[in-house]
């Protein structure tokens, strides 16, 4: 939590606050207005992408807590999205529980399985853990594909649209409000987590785990907990996504999706909760935009479907390049760029 350039806190209260300047409150208000106006200005096509961003944002915040703040990598985000999705679909379909309980169940199952795969954290350090999550992804995806009990022998299973107070939520417009509130709560919780002792302990583990252990942080247990939180949030996002999309198929939970989430938090900026949302937005809009451009090209000229035909490949390559480029040139991502822009204007025309 570096202090921003040109901000002078004169009271402890202000120093401890999340927002230090009036401009930040103004921005928050602007953001609120933007969020309220947005669904009225967008058509259904783009609004559905906004919903996907909000969904991805939940899981990205979880991964950010794990990777950006605790210094562990998870390559299994997609696997745990799937756990949440299959969890809630099975709970609501078989036990006929209402959707909130199903989502809660999916989240808890994902967190529990996540804790199991995080257990090697008790024995080994960062690098090895990445491989453990790699194994988790391989195992989970295989289970989604071939476990008749889970899918009741079908290729895909259905999840119902939720009902709130007797009202069926089905349009993108209604979903937007639901997801907006949930994602805002997750972000709020995520930001505030790092003002608590537990959150500070996670940061200490990231910066120097041996020193953290020495000052009394139970490193192993907290690492497993961080794992569990990240996987739980992924499961939460997956469960909500299952009800949003209404169809659950294993293809959506493969390695590529896990890569996508890693890309999100790197692009957004490691070590920034809001960065997770920037990253989710960036990595969801860009492919959508490429698709749109591709479709435009196809309609315009007669025979250039290359960009359409190769779209998945182009996306993969692009994500890879974006990850590498950000790590080389701006390892702290979009959040840092935004921070620098703010610093520049706050005390303009001076440098520091």
């Amino acid at each position, binding site marked *: 939590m570096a202090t921003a350039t040109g901000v002078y806190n004169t009271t402890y209260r202000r120093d401890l606050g999340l927002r230090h300047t009036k401009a930040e409150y103004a921005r928050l208000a602007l953001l609120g207005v933007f969020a309220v106006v947005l669904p009225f200005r967008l058509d259904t096509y783009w609004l559905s992408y906004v919903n996907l961003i909000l969904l991805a944002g939940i899981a990205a915040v979880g991964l950010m807590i794990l990777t950006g703040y605790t210094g562990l990598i998870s390559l299994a985000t997609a696997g745990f999205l799937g756990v949440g999705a299959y969890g809630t679909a099975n709970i609501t379909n078989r036990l006929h529980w209402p959707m909130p309980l199903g989502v809660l169940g999916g989240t808890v199952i994902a967190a529990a399985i996540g804790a199991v795969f995080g257990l090697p954290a008790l024995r080994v350090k960062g690098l090895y853990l990445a491989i453990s999550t790699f194994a988790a992804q391989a195992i989970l995806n*295989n289970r989604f594909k071939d476990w008749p009990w889970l899918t009741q022998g079908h290729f895909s299973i259905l999840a119902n649209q939720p009902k709130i107070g007797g009202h069926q939520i089905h349009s993108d417009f209604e979903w937007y409000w639901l997801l907006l509130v949930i994602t805002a709560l997750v972000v709020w919780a995520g930001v505030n987590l790092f003002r608590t002792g537990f959150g500070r302990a996670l940061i200490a583990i990231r910066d120097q785990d041996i020193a953290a252990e020495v000052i009394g942080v139970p490193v192993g247990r907290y690492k497993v907990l961080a794992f569990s939180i990240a996987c739980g949030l992924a499961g939460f996002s997956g469960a909500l996504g299952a009800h949003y999309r209404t169809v659950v198929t294993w293809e959506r939970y493969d390695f590529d999706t896990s890569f996508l989430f890693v890309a999100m938090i790197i692009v957004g900026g490691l070590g920034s909760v809001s960065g997770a949302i920037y990253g989710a937005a960036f990595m969801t809009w860009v492919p959508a935009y490429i698709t749109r451009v591709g479709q435009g090209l196809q309609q315009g000229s007669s025979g250039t479907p290359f960009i359409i035909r190769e779209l998945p490949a182009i996306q*993969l*390559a692009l994500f890879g390049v974006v990850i590498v480029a950000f790590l080389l040139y701006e390892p702290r991502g979009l959040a840092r760029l935004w921070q620098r822009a703010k610093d520049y204007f706050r005390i303009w025309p001076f440098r520091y």
Partner: protein
Amino acid sequence: MTRFLQLTVNGLGNGAILALATLGFVLIYKATEVINFAQGQFLVIGSFVVYNANVTWGLPWPLAVVVGILAGILLGLAIERVILRRLVGESSLSVIMVTIGLASALFGIVLMTWGAEPKPSPKFIPSGSVKLFGDVSVGANRLWAVAVAVVVFVAVALFFQRSRHGVAMRAVADDQQAAMVQGISVNRIFAFAWALAGAAGAVGGVLLASINNGYSLELESFAILVFPVVILGGLDSVLGTVVGGMIIGLLVEYTKSYMNVNASQILPFVILVAILLVKPYGLFGQVRIERV
């Protein structure tokens, strides 16, 4: 009994190839302490270049293999020089994530260049079967693969024991600063390790293609078995690579036959997690004790 022996022979054959595919990974880790998630792409790219050289450009196969190995070396060198050298001294977290990004980028490029359709397997590796003993027979391609793997591993062992560069590489792996003080160019050793990994990837890729009856993206799914192998054998042990490769190869064959394909796909990863819990540095890996 015959079935068991047959499975054992097949499993050992696959294990040898798996070990070869893993070798590049271990070489890079040993010298540079980078976990290279893009190793699977090295296999795919190396083998596709050989396919192109042999089938599309019509080169004779020894030349095609040389072209493939050269391509692997160039790829390794380019990655080291352009990307990883800038990250020397950065946290291992960002280095790992760079290789993840690299894996994704390379995979996308492979898809764009060669497409997703499988290509027929190389013609130059004989595909008949050889009777060993009793009713046990083994595909000639597997025998070939094992022979190549043995040659490569003996060469690597000799290289590390006898040659100047091999000893220098071990020195760098042991202690970078001390090696630098001795006048070893650490940069050059890093580049060397990546080049070797690229070459090993190409050779492994071609052999994998021969037992899988063709070049395809299936290689990718075989290539992810690299992780169970290295964790079982120990991340920094060449011997561990061989033993780990054999064990995983055998287990996959047994479970595939006696249980089902799904079990054989999951088992290696279950072993991986179990090993991490019980013996995190693997069978032959060097146990690292950290001091502040």
